[in-house]
């Protein structure tokens, strides 16, 4: 009963956030001075090759698709109904390719470099942070400053340095793209063996930053727990260190689990610039191209997917928290 109330409230909040996000996504690109369809069609005609007839067909297609001749609220409804049908629209720059297809091609690459990086970075980082907090002394100081440095380093700066040192100077790994020229993505061992050489550098550039961030967070959580009453009590009881560490670890883990879930939610937009640095064909590169060509449907689609992924992860985390921790439920429904 109480839990249903809690979930209900959360659903309402996230719906509100989603609607605001959709509105922003809908309105902002339409604020660009001039009609984007005019601009794009005049661009195409300047390029030549298209006859007046074709131009007109393209123009009408866009006008109809976006309903640009209709009032704003009706356009918004059209936008919503398109989204509800899973239709993200048609690309301006690569007419007549659908945005669904462009994004669908890019998304797997983004996930392929980020998901392993997040998981590995999370495990290693948490272990490092917990050990540093418990051991203290020089190990702690070294690990802390190192992690702080790794996590504060903008991840694209690390990417650039790795690319230069490992890719260009040492020349041991390929520096650009996701697979060798002439191959096409297919589920064979040969392709996989080739693609993985391209995958190492972006992966490492993300993992190092992740480890640092997680270690810093875990260390401060563990220090916080080290001073808690139950630790003193446990020491008083004469519990062994192992046991206490286990308790500390379990308690300090909660926010870290949240962090993991949220990182996975941020997977779509988490490494936009890394992909640019390595010319990796993921979402970041697609967004970059779309921005340089004023390809609004693609930009909109990408920002929307990023938002939805983040909102979904946040929502799931809050539901999980409500399940795990009765205090949160009570506080939220106003019983406390």
């Amino acid at each position, binding site marked *: 009963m109480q839990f249903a109330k809690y979930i209900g409230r959360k659903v309402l909040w996230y719906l509100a956030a989603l609607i*605001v996000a959709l509105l922003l996504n809908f309105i902002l690109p339409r604020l660009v001075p001039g009609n984007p369809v005019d601009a794009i069609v005049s661009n195409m005609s300047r390029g030549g090759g298209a006859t007046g007839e074709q131009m007109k067909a393209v123009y009408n297609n866009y006008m109809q698709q976006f309903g640009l001749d209709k009032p704003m609220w009706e356009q918004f409804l059209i936008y919503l109904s398109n989204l509800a049908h899973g239709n993200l629209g048609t690309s301006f720059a690569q007419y007549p390719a659908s945005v669904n297809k462009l994004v669908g091609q890019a998304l797997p690459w983004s996930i392929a470099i980020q998901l392993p990086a997040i998981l590995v970075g999370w495990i290693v980082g948490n272990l490092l942070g917990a050990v540093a907090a418990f051991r203290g002394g020089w190990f702690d100081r070294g690990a802390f400053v190192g992690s702080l440095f790794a996590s504060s380093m903008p991840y694209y700066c690390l990417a650039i340095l790795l690319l230069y040192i490992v890719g260009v100077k040492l020349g041991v790994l390929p520096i650009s793209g996701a697979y060798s020229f002439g191959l096409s993505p297919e589920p064979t061992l040969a392709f996989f063996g080739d693609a993985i050489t391209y995958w190492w550098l972006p992966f490492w550039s993300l993992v190092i930053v992740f480890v640092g961030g997680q270690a810093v967070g875990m260390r401060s959580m563990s220090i916080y727990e080290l001073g808690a009453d139950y630790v003193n009590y446990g020491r008083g009881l004469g519990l062994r260190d192992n046991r206490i560490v286990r308790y500390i670890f379990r308690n300090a883990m909660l926010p870290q689990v949240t962090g993991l879930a949220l990182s996975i939610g941020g997977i779509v937009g988490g490494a936009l610039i890394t992909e640019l640095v390595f010319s990796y064909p993921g979402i970041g590169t697609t967004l970059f191209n779309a921005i340089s060509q004023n390809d609004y449907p693609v930009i909109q689609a990408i920002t929307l997917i990023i938002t939805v992924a983040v909102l979904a992860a*946040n929502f799931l985390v809050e539901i999980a928290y409500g399940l795990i921790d009765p205090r949160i439920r009570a506080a939220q429904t106003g019983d406390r």
Partner: protein
Amino acid sequence: MKAINFTPRFWVAASLILFVLVVGVLGPFIVRTDPNAVIGGLYDAPSMNKLAMWLGTDNEGQSVLANLVNGIRTSLLVGLLAGIIAMVIGLIIGLVAGFQGGVVSDILMGITNIVLAIPSIVVVILLSVALNGRNAVILGFVIGITSWPWTARAVQAQSTSIRVREHIDVARLSGARWISILLWDILPYLLSYVAMAFVLQVSGAILTESALSMLGLGPSGETSLGTMLYWALAWGSVRTGAWWAFLPPTIMLTLVAFSLLLLQSSLDEVFNPRLRRGKLRKRPRGAATPVPAVASPQTLGSSPLIEAPGRAGRTAGASSSTVRDGGVA
């Protein structure tokens, strides 16, 4: 007894920041070369003959050193502007919501929670796409008005807990006005948090600016650290080994981010004695039940998403132990 105990970490951070500031503020007056003047060919290697050539030339034959000092200035400007805007909005909303309570608080925190849930990089990208004539000041505004929510939320949480303390009742009874209670009786308790949050906001904003610039949404007609990297990548300086074009902005960005984060964590140690190591076991504890991190899912929400607000958000999570202590102890 010393009132404030600055750690070595603080002095390292402070001197790094001072160095960046000197380069960014005085640099343009020392390197008098116009950053837009063509002084050589494509990626001329550095030479010690002329000050402007110390770091060679970039893809347009302009002096990298002149671009660098001006770029640092632009980036610092964007960072400070965005930081101040975010801080002011966050403080006003957080203080009013925390002190007023009731419907006002519900509305303000509702707005905050919604804005917090939407990844700020998305809003920044959409806003920058919609704005045509972008310059450093506009970018600073855009970043500032998208990065205030987590400050607002933390300030609200803390001022709510301060509101019920006795000295507030005393102030009320002695007839102090609403605004004076906010400014003189509540704000001082938050100053340590505000200082740390501001540092993070600035560093976050500088990184957001460079990420935007690298996506092609940077200030037009101005040099920033991000636009330098944008051109360096676009013209393949990394691949051709022209290290002088991409290494300086990369190093400066790292330096800025690292030193600001170091400053934040050293301030944390100064303000929050519990983080100092060594005395942990003997420390008496206040009435603090570890507050359930209700706030954290969304506070972190913006974090994994992108470089800048990301980092800020993450460390905000880390420093939330301070917030908690300040609030409950």
